[in-house]
């Protein structure tokens, strides 16, 4: 089954042009490790360690990596669910990383998040209609009757009958709940939506429905996505560009096609290799199988963080930290493939 390409043809303007909608500079998110009866800080878990990236209006940036590499932490830092330890987050020209809660409130309508687990992301005591109209009423963007109308419209947009607004979250399936989560993120008409593994809790056929919904919504409302995921299939399907993360840093960013055709970082290649290949004729090429575990983010390796598991590591990798270089296809590796 081939991928539908109409959407890509329709939108040739999805090039990296103009000013980025979101720019992250040197983001660090450290969590203290406390020990002993006096809670002395004995170290830090470096969940995100000096990450920089740009997201351009209208594009979908996929963010992939193993569990615990800091993908979700990055997403949460962007919507300011956690204050970053260090670094700048510039959204729409404003540095929101040092905004107070009050200042942040006006930005929140433009910056939303869709959560991974559709079962814990909806308040079990609220009807769907109340869940969705609450943001509008709270920000005084609509009167109660306007809000009701808008909620009904929004339910139809995400593919649910409008009569569902009188139901409680437990009456829905996972896929339906995720649609409600998407509706909640959309209702304030945001510019950027952080999708924090929105489909990894759903089964595959529902994943496809939700991904298609996200794509359609992007076209309709001119949305920008940061799509966090670990299922490469889903990320490939939806992303215009993909960023690969390892232990709190980005190791490679490129356009989706380019990334899959021509991965430069050995870790990216290993990730691609780890994904099962449906077509048997395409199997059996050179593979990298990673051994060992991800090193602890509390005590990451010196030099290139990947050198402990890299099959082509050399002595330079153990000492020098590689920087992300390259314009259209950036990679942080001393000895990139090809």
């Amino acid at each position, binding site marked *: 089954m081939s991928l539908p390409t109409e959407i890509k043809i329709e939108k040739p303007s999805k090039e990296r042009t103009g000013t980025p909608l979101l720019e992250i500079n040197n983001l660090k998110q450290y969590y203290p490790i406390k020990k002993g009866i006096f809670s002395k800080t004995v170290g830090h878990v470096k969940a995100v360690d000096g990450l920089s990236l740009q997201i351009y209006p209208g594009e979908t940036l996929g963010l992939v990596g193993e569990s615990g590499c800091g993908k979700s932490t990055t997403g949460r830092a962007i919507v300011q669910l956690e204050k970053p330890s260090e670094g700048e987050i510039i959204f729409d020209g404003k540095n929101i990383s040092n905004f107070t809660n009050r200042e942040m409130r006006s930005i929140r309508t433009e910056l939303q998040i869709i959560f991974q687990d559709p079962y814990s*992301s909806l308040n079990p005591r609220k009807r769907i209609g109340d869940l969705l109209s609450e*943001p509008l009423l709270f920000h005084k963007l609509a009167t109660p009757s306007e809000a009701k109308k808008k909620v009904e419209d929004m339910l139809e947009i995400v*593919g649910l009958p409008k009569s569902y607004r009188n139901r409680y979250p437990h009456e829905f399936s996972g896929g339906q709940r995720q649609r409600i989560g998407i509706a909640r993120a959309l209702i304030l008409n945001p510019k950027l939506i952080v999708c924090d593994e929105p489909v990894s809790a759903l089964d595959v056929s529902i994943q496809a429905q939700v991904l298609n919904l996200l794509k359609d919504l992007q076209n309709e409302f001119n949305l920008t996505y940061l799509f966090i995921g670990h299922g490469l299939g889903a990320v490939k399907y939806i992303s215009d560009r993909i960023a690969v993360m390892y232990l709190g840093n980005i190791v490679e960013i490129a356009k989706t096609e380019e990334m*899959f055709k021509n991965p430069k970082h050995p870790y990216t290649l290993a990730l691609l290799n780890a994904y099962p290949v449906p077509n048997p004729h395409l199997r059996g090429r050179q593979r990298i199988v990673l051994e060992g575990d991800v090193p602890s983010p509390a005590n990451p390796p010196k030099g290139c963080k990947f050198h402990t598991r890299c099959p082509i590591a050399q002595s330079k990798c153990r000492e020098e930290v590689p920087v992300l270089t390259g314009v259209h296809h950036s990679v942080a590796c001393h000895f990139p493939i090809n």
Partner: protein
Amino acid sequence: MAAPELEFENNTPVSITQPLSNSQEGLGKEESYLKVVANRFFKHKLAVIGLVIITLFVLMAIFAPVIAPQDPLEVGYEFEAKPSSEHLLGTDQVGRDVLSRLIYASRISLSVGLGAVSIYVVIGTILGAIAGYMGKWADMLIMRITDVFMSFPFLMVILVLVSVMGPSLFNIILVLGILGWPPIARLVRGSVLSLKEMDYVKAGVALGYTAPKILLHHILPNALAPILVNATFGIASAIIMEASLSFLGMGVQPPTASWGNMLTEAQSLTVLAEQPWLWIPPGLMIILAVISINFMGDGLRDAVDPKSFK
């Protein structure tokens, strides 16, 4: 070297305007939340029985002067008389009508139970919610104060406070209310701590809601069940606590009757063995009140939980 071709299978296009399922569309009825909760509550038989009994008790308390056959304070001619047509439940050691005293006592016992618990549930919920949600120094401060309160010998402090303030009904309610909050505060803090990590609370933050809004609309409604259950048990223990205070002479002062002091007045072997009309009725009233309130709490907890309803 090229990476293997990846395909995302099952990419069946789904029209965004086509609803997933229309099957149960008729179920979305317009009903107010209170009505739904009431309907669910009335399906819980024990809760309804509890509600009926408590309603009767409350009516009895309100209309005590009308219902009571005699003045509860009036000393009659017969001491410790057996139940008769004149005194349906007999008379006590000084010749007062037990039935009338029982009816008037419901005023005292119910107001101690409900009053003290409402005070401490409010204090405990507010402090626990602040501690759990704000964390850091606020949590530290509030929890240490809670620890201090919990490490007091409860009864001694109550005795001292009541004797300083004077043993009146109002003071007893106040003292029990002010000293009863630490368990609720801990309970609420625990619930809030776990609930604030839920994604729907994070979504509330991302939607820009203020902390009071998140606490009141998204966290506390979900922490309601344990609070309700604890409160119903609290009413029971406040009624019993008032009885203990009465026994020690620091409760509601004689000649005013409460179920507790009626029970404690009957604490002698002869009374227990030979004059059951002195202790069975007040004991029964306490048990009935406590059980009814517990059943109501049970029913209410299920009624406000949308998941329990089919």
